[in-house]
């Protein structure tokens, strides 16, 4: 039994699955449990990204009798009703904690009902007890690809085309970051075929093989990309373009993978436009060399921000705190290249507080709860989900790409000037 006093309880695989599947427009999620769980799952979804999900999730509404009798009748009735009313391509049947615990055979029920409906039934029996949030996104994504990537022949277009594998509805700053990635791809003359899973229809999943390359922006999508490569022969490039140097590197890798010339002039123009430098933005009365940062974010974001802070800004990152262990075992080495020796995973609220107390960073990147627990840090910047106190619907505030670097640099300077005590230590 874990005790959580101030921080955010872990979002289990249940949320990873539900939020991935809800983002598929022609998929409806059925939560098999008491209705309260779904009521608040839709509320927390709305809290995170202010989106309505009417008609995209339902609860079967089990009651005491269903639990005592182990009845599946409500679930079957729910599946049949949704299939008849909405005609979705897929119905994801997700067990809640209570139906998972009483051992109701969600997989067997879906198998039994499948012949009576036109939607594909995808069961998820774990009830939030089978892994982490990211593993839920991974298994939800994998199940979708397994079900709908039917034609595995690769038929490519004349111009270079990519799929983007990674964004889900709750990814921090999604609108701005993916807009920036699209902008850079546009400058390179690269077309985007499918963005998966966020907003991707089942036909979009089926068309994945028609692109030249899969751009994987989150490591949790690597198993899906590897699976697609194994069955379609489609290669992937993993990484999120962040920072000036990071984005240049990403463009270089992308050009090589797509076998297109490295766009030297385009990169030069972009760097010339967006590479604001701290010495020109801070005055002589603003000593900033002593600034240090603690970064609490998922791996790709933590890596990208570390790169900006150390390589582009020339400052120090004292600690990187990751919510989950990255898929690559060499993640510590990746941060070590930026001179960061402390990388901790899934730490408790107390440990987190200890780190902030001893390291006294100037700058803290994290989610709402990290920032709340780190009130003593002068400059606090949202950089991870969830952020119930921050709306990021507008697509003009990227952290990724060249413009993301420019935006964050401007933000750092503005925040520092608003907290002049940071120059006095």
């Amino acid at each position: 039994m874990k005790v959580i006093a101030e921080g955010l309880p872990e979002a289990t695989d249940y949320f990873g699955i539900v939020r991935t599947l809800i983002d598929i427009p022609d998929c409806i999620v059925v939560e098999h449990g008491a209705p309260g769980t779904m009521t608040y799952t839709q509320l927390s979804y709305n809290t995170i990204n202010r989106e309505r999900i009417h008609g995209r999730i339902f609860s079967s509404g089990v009651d005491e009798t269903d639990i005592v009798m182990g009845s599946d009748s409500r679930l079957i009735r729910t599946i049949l009703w949704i299939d008849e009313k909405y005609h979705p391509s897929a119905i994801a049947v997700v067990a809640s904690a209570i139906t998972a615990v009483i051992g109701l055979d969600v997989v067997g029920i879906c198998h039994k009902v499948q012949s009576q409906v036109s939607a594909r039934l995808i069961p998820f029996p774990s009830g939030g007890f089978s892994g982490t949030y990211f593993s839920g996104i991974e298994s939800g994504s994998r199940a979708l690809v397994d079900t709908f990537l039917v034609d595995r022949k690769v038929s490519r277009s004349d111009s270079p085309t990519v799929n983007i594998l990674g964004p889900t509805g709750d990814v921090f700053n999604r609108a701005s970051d993916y807009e920036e990635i699209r902008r850079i791809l546009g400058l390179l003359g690269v077309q985007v075929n499918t963005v998966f899973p966020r907003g991707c229809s089942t036909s979009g999943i089926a068309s994945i093989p028609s692109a030249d390359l899969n751009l994987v922006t989150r490591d949790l999508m690597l198993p899906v990309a590897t699976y697609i490569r194994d069955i379609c022969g489609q290669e992937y490039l993993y990484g999120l373009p962040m920072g000036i140097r990071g984005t240049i590197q990403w463009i270089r890798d992308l050009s090589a993978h797509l076998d297109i010339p490295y766009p030297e002039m385009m990169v030069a123009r972009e760097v010339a436009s967006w590479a604001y430098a701290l010495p020109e933005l801070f005055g002589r009365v603003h000593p900033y060399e002593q600034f240090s940062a603690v970064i609490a974010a998922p791996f790709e974001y933590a890596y990208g921000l570390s790169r900006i802070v150390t390589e582009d800004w020339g400052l120090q990152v004292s600690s990187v705190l990751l919510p989950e262990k990255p898929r690559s075992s060499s993640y510590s080495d990746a941060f070590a290249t930026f001179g960061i020796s402390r990388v901790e995973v899934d730490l408790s609220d107390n440990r987190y507080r200890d780190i902030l107390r001893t390291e006294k960073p100037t700058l803290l990147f994290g989610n709402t709860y990290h920032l709340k627990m780190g009130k003593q840090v002068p400059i606090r910047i949202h950089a991870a989900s969830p952020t119930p106190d921050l709306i990021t619907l507008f697509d003009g505030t990227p952290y990724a790409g060249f413009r993301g670097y420019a935006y964050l640099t401007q933000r750092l300077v503005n925040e520092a000037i608003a907290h002049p005590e940071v120059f006095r230590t």
Partner: protein
Amino acid sequence: MNSAIKDLQGTSSLCEILETRSAGESSVPIFPGLGCGFFSISHNIPAIRGACAVMIAPALCAYNARLALSRWEQSSRDIENNLIFFLYEEDDLIHGAGESIRQALIDICQRGTFKVLFVVTSCLPEIVGEDVEAVVRQLRDLVSVPVLLIKTENFTDMTARLSQANALLSFLDLMEHPREHIQKSVNIIGSSARDFPSSELSSVLQEAGYSINTVFPSGCDLDRLKKASRAEYNVLLTRNATLLAEKMQAEFCIPFYLFDAAYSPQAISDNYAGLGTFLGCDLLPSVAARKDGLTDAIQSARDHLEGSSIIISLSNSRVFDMATLLYDVGMYVPLIGFNQLTTTDLSDASRLSCRDSEILTINNLSISPLDECIATIRPNYYLSFGNPDAIFCARNGVRARRLVSRPHPNGFDAGRRILEILSKDKPGLSTLVLREQMREKAGIL
């Protein structure tokens, strides 16, 4: 119009409701539902000053509750995060978590500075039979602060009502046995201690010479709560307080009166008349001017509301009486969404059926069939307590209105509030409507 919707799933006529005396079952899967006790308690306890709550739940429910609380923290509600989550994990399911819970609770009591500790269980520990009640009993002998237990399993009640009743009932353990009752003193149960003093009922009671002893649960003073048993009368502003009031009557000999939120002038007058009889005085002369105020407001509202149609949907209030008020204004109510049917509701429904026997009703446990009705009927207005889907309403040319929960008016003020809400659009709503019109034009739905 009714013939177009009579075939829609799940509707019943008002006459059928009166015959069957039941809200009927929701015939479809549930979305978004009427809440659950665990979450309701998780945002009610933070409104109690000096309290701390230990919420025993799987990570799934704890995550949702903390996130929901974050939203409340940024709201007009004056609350603070005083929740501690005990995550009920797989190991606990297999081996039981009684000892871990006991130890963690002792630890919290030793370190905490709170005046009362609530221990709240959710579906999962209840299903596996975790005996939290026994742990709480043991704990009471070991710690100095009062420890109250609230059970909130959702599978026994599809709404939060039973859990809210349990939460109020748990306060009984805090109350001291009174030596004597303070004459002409009244407890108000089911209100915010901060808001009640400025409400109509507060003024009426004080004008009649009654003192307010304790107001709870929201924002209540725990020291005053201990002395709630000294009051001569209990006045309930929520139906969920009946369980507690019955116990207080049995244990402390305090009679109670349910001042069940009414909206129409007649029902509000009846409420005051009933309260006067209960207290042994005549309150009607002192509320006559207030009644005239509501009558005037009805006349004024007629200017812009008369002839328009409205669908209303409430889960825990006198929805049929609200419809009566709207008929007083000259509106037409083709459909009423509701979920609870008490004897008061039945009498309201009976009175309403004399005004219009064609009114249809629907169980609003799930919004889906109600949405379908709104899209078919396309009333001028849609009023609900929950979050009416403003986008859905805008697309269907319906003006969405929401009953805000705070400050919660009572008496004739409650009727006036409804008319005010209907009388003007929320700032910015016209932009939402414009955008949805453009979306439709551009085929972006």
